[in-house]
């Protein structure tokens, strides 16, 4: 039956309209991914009204491809301007932007785009392979286990960026504290809002991202003069891009690990790509032989998050189809659109309507290939942004940051938040506090609280006495102390472990 469904899906794929809308979707996604500050979410929300008039088999490819396009292209501004194109390309800038400053923008772009495209495609093959396993996997996880899935993400707070572990932890802690601003989800009580309406809904993520990453870079550029890339770097254009693509194959196992990791996080409802990117980055650093190079512009730091964030889509799509539960904000919007087109997600999507599910997965493959190819063609020219003099780049980018912060919710307060976090970000940048850690804390804080209280309510204070939870606890501990653990296993790694400890 599965073979029949697959053949039917391929048959669907011969529809010219479907291909056309897939292509159009990818292009729209790329455009939105390339404009810093408007992510795929905004793009989807804007496109959805138009999709109502289309037949489902035009609208669904359009929306699916749009997400793939935006996530793929979103890495470009992360690398070039230190401004993530979408919320899921943040981890890419930790190493992508330093590479750009070293004059390796082309190489970073090549690596990011190739790992993105391949990650997106491979995740769908993973999806094909484990369709029967998705339901049991999702059903096995309870709120208690989710607490430790989130905790595993929190353990990576200390290792993002170049500063010391202590500074990383403090930054992450501040991020967690900021996430508590606003109402508390289970009781509705408002915290730290000082009576301000604006703060009731919490500090919005997008202005924070624009503020702590984008503004400080532009401010520094303006204060120091020159261009983003340091003078004297030699650029080889297309050859740089090609080199970056080859890097993905040099680190093939890292790429595969990150893709699988992203895919699994995608399957788990309620976590999503914004966490997957950091987990992928963290594991890349923790398993690397030279963790001290991370954060200074190493290509592995680009490959890991970029392959993971595209891989999330395949996983999240599958969960959404099988259970009607979106695994990421993008799939949440897609789910709304599917419902309107009378595609009702549920277990039958894995049985009676398997062909439709497979068609959707094939669309993800197609869109990823289109998006990566188009971006690769554009990349050599885009990479030249690094050499635009600051006096011209700074006003343009600052204007776009401000407008991006505004249009998200049409609120001038968001622009004020952007400026405030710009100042915070500048201090953090200059004194070696890790900005990605702060963001990770901000993303995970309320999630952690939500699952913690659910687990307590459902299973009492001993909620963690479950096999899956205990395994996750062990993994978290191993992730924290991996340096020491490695030290125990023979002398070969001892030296690296030592450098790691001091570098944190």
């Amino acid at each position, binding site marked *: 039956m599965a073979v029949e469904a697959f053949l039917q899906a391929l048959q669907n794929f011969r529809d010219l309209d479907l291909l056309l809308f897939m292509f159009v979707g990818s292009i729209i996604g790329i455009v939105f991914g390339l404009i810093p500050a408007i992510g795929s979410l905004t793009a989807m929300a804007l496109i959805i009204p138009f999709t109502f008039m289309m037949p489902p088999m035009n609208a669904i490819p359009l929306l699916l491809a749009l997400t793939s396009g935006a996530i793929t292209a979103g890495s470009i501004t992360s690398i070039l301007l230190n401004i993530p194109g979408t919320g899921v390309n943040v981890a890419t800038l930790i190493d992508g932007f330093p590479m750009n400053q070293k004059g390796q923008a082309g190489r970073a772009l090549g690596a990011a785009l190739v790992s993105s495209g391949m990650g997106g495609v491979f995740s769908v093959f993973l999806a094909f392979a484990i369709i029967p396993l998705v339901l049991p996997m999702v059903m096995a996880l309870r709120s208690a286990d989710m607490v430790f899935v989130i905790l595993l993400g929190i353990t990576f707070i200390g290792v993002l960026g170049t500063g010391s572990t202590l500074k990383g932890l403090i930054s992450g802690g501040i991020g*967690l504290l900021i996430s508590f601003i606003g109402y508390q989800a289970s009781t509705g009580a408002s915290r730290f809002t000082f009576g301000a309406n604006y703060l009731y809904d919490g500090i919005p993520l997008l202005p924070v991202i624009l503020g702590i990453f984008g503004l400080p870079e532009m401010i*520094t550029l303006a*204060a120091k003069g020159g261009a983003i890339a340091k003078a004297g770097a030699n650029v080889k254009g297309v050859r740089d891009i090609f080199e970056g693509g080859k890097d993905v194959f040099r680190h093939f196992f890292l790429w595969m690990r990150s893709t699988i990791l992203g895919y699994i996080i995608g399957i788990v409802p309620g976590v999503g790509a914004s966490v997957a990117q950091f987990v992928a980055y963290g594991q890349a650093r923790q398993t690397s032989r030279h963790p001290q190079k991370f954060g200074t512009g190493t290509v592995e730091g680009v490959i890991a998050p970029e392959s993971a964030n595209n891989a999330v889509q395949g996983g999240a799509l599958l969960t959404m189809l099988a259970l009607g539960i979106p695994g990421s904000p993008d799939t949440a919007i897609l789910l709304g659109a599917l419902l309107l087109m009378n595609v009702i997600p549920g277990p039958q999507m894995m049985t009676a309507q398997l062909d439709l599910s497979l068609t959707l997965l094939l669309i993800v493959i197609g869109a990823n290939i289109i998006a990566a190819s188009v971006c690769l063609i554009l990349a050599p020219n885009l990479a030249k942004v690094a050499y635009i003099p600051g006096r011209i780049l700074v006003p343009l980018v600052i204007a776009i940051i401000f407008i991006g912060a505004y249009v998200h919710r049409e609120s001038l307060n968001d622009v004020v938040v952007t400026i405030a976090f710009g100042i915070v970000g500048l201090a953090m940048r200059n004194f*070696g506090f890790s900005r990605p850690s702060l963001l990770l804390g901000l993303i995970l804080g309320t999630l952690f609280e939500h699952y913690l209280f659910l687990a307590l309510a459902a299973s009492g204070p001993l909620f963690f006495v479950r096999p899956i939870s205990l395994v996750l606890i062990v993994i978290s501990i191993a992730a924290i102390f991996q340096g020491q653990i490695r030290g125990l296993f023979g002398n070969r790694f001892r030296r690296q472990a030592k450098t790691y400890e001091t570098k944190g």
Partner: protein
Amino acid sequence: MKLKGSSYCYIGVMGIAAAVIILALPMESLKPKLLPLILGGIVFVLSAAGLWRDLFVQNNKPDGETKKDVDSEVADARLGGYLAIGVWIAGFFLAIYLVGFTIATLLFVLAYIKAHGAKWLTAIIFTIITLAVVYGVFEVVLKMSLYKGLFFAF
């Protein structure tokens, strides 16, 4: 025993953590205040440790951090540059508040590029490009209404 930039950061963070704890303590039920209290405490202790290390253990610092501090000293030397761009940004925001995004963007981009020694032509070209993107993408294609400014709100 000299206070450095990062020391001020640690002190600031300690202040924030203390404020969180003070604000959270009087909350009625346990649920909303549990995690802020725990985390506020942890962050306070961590930043106190950081301050301690800054003040008394200066010599044992890892290399990476020394490099960063040198970097920030270089930054201090260019304080004037930071102040200048700060004034530009503040001015831009004020302009947005008063006359709206479209005109403020026009003024900001044009003035900034011109003030940094470019020819009029270059300044005008880039202003037009920015405006085309701002106006074209946001207002025309996306049909979003950008903020019109205090002067034009009536």
